[in-house]
């Protein structure tokens, strides 16, 4: 099976635009694989064939690359792809308990049958000062507890609106997120705070004490 002509045409237009940004076409491979995920929710066979064709490389080469990177999925992600940080710091601060309770609550450690939620144990996501940390479609959900984590996935499955702690007002889908990762902006950069909570602790101390860098 290959892409229907209208899908193919749309993807090809995007892909060509992405490729044109780079001095050498092959540099666009990772963005193109994100683009494929924005269509299929994973790096499908068709999608990898498509990348190979556009870049003039073999499909084996594409597969060799896509299998190296954990964000490229071999199975479709849920509409909401949920990550729980289980690297040492988050795990110890409660991430392990969150993972255990969440997977028990959902009855799976992979994906719910309704296709809404997929789960992943993720590594340190550069948000340790907000531990324990979760991500949904790569948006931050900081300072989680087992209760808040279960509520979050319930809300996602019920189609209720949820907002990341540091991100846009509305959480986008996995496919929408993948399109941004491919390099196609969605116009949401202006939403959400500049910085919150821990990001501002040092600055608060400096302000309170009147500390500044030398003039």
């Amino acid at each position, binding site marked *: 099976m290959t892409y229907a002509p209208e899908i193919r045409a749309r993807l090809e237009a995007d892909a060509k635009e992405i490729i044109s*940004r780079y001095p050498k076409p092959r540099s666009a491979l990772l963005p193109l694989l994100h683009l494929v995920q924005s269509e299929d929710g994973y790096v499908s066979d068709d999608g990898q064939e498509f990348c190979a064709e556009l870049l003039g490389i073999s499909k084996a080469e594409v597969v060799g690359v896509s299998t190296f990177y954990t964000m490229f999925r071999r199975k479709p992600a849920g509409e909401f792809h949920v990550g729980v940080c289980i690297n040492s710091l988050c*795990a110890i601060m409660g991430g392990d308990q969150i993972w255990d309770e969440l997977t028990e609550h959902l009855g799976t450690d992979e994906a719910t049958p309704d296709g809404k939620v997929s789960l992943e144990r993720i590594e340190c996501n550069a948000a340790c000062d907000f531990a324990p940390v979760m991500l949904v479609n790569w948006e931050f959900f900081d300072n989680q507890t087992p209760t808040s984590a279960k509520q979050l996935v319930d809300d996602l499955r019920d189609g209720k609106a949820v907002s990341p702690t540091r991100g846009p007002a509305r959480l986008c889908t996995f496919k929408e997120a993948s399109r941004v990762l491919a390099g196609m902006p969605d116009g949401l950069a202006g939403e959400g705070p500049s910085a919150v909570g821990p990001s501002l602790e040092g600055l608060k101390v400096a302000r309170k004490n009147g500390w*500044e860098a030398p003039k």
Partner: protein
Amino acid sequence: MTTLTPVLTKNWDTQGSFTLDGYGGDYAAARKAVGMDPDAIIQAVKDSGLRGRGGAGFPTGMKWGFIPQNDGKPHYLVVNADESEPGTCKDIPLMMANPHSLVEGVIITAYAIRANYAFIYIRGEVLHVIRRVMAAVREAYDKGFIGSGIFGSGYDLEVVVHTGAGAYICGEETALLDSLEGYRGQPRLKPPFPAIAGLYAAPTVINNVESIASVPSIVANGADWFAGMGTEKSKGFGIFSLSGHVTRPGQYEAPLGITLREVLDMAGGVRAGHQLKFWTPGGSSTPIFTAEHLDVPLDFEAVGAAGSMLGTRALQIFDETTCVVRAVLRWTEFYAHESCGKCTPCREGTFWLKQVLKRMEAGQGTEDDIATITDIGDNILGKSFCAFGDGAVSPIHSSVKYFRDEYLKHFEIGGCPFDPAKSTVWGVA
């Protein structure tokens, strides 16, 4: 007493700090730089004493100086925004709240090294940060700060925001280059160094986000201003990221040489009712410290002399409720998962470390296993193809050095002597 010196973090508490207006900016430093002799900029950065903020602390100006001139080849600037070292969490909030400091730094750096192309390689798992950086680059293009003939000069610059796809090793600079060229992210043999043969085999400078974002302040305020902060060989300011069992974890921007005791004081100390047990000065790849290191000046020299590395100033704090074997096992699982597989000592060694440590943590080990993990560590350390291998061994060697008894305790009682519930945020005694 050391006081905080907000420069990069200074506008984070203002609304819209991530926009050009919020940056307060017309990119005055970049505008000034583009009117200067590129070599004078390199000299200023050399004079400032700025050293790489990505972990290794290589002098930034010297790195720029290695780029051959008038070689007729294109030059490239690549910003390392892969931030994935466990514990490290400074570049992400910086790009979220103040991406224009990075973009302005990119312009100055690219101009100084005579590059007409710059790439910002951001790890893929930080969607909103990627939006913010793409938007900042767009704004700069719209203003004519990037593009052709910027600031009315004859200088052209293209900036591309590129997203990774989940691979810690792509933070290693040569693996990053392979990844950016569209390959598996595996390190390259050095030499040749990227300054000679980097991206597309052309001269390339790779710098960390915070290094580059510091450059506009140096151009604006002068090398002496920057060198006036910090210690003798570790100049300037840096963001210290405090996480774990502390009252107010967060980002504290201070001169290099501040101590953990001072940072902890500002942060309200270790969480109430608990004591410091162990900590990392610069991420999981830097050997752990204990309470005896509270007064070590956090600069490259002093931390090194005390047996660890300043790394990325990722201060992960663990109190007495934490099982050190559990922390080390989890980091080791991380290294085993992220090993790129190119060289045998690291690929096989991290795998076996993980297996043996699992048994040890479950209380089924023996004293011989301590010798075994130390031995495997010795076969990785200094014998691997890239610095990943050395990093993977840091938690092993340092934990055995400081907490041998805790390993033994596991074997003695046939299990873990700690209750993991007590270490959680909600499990405060």
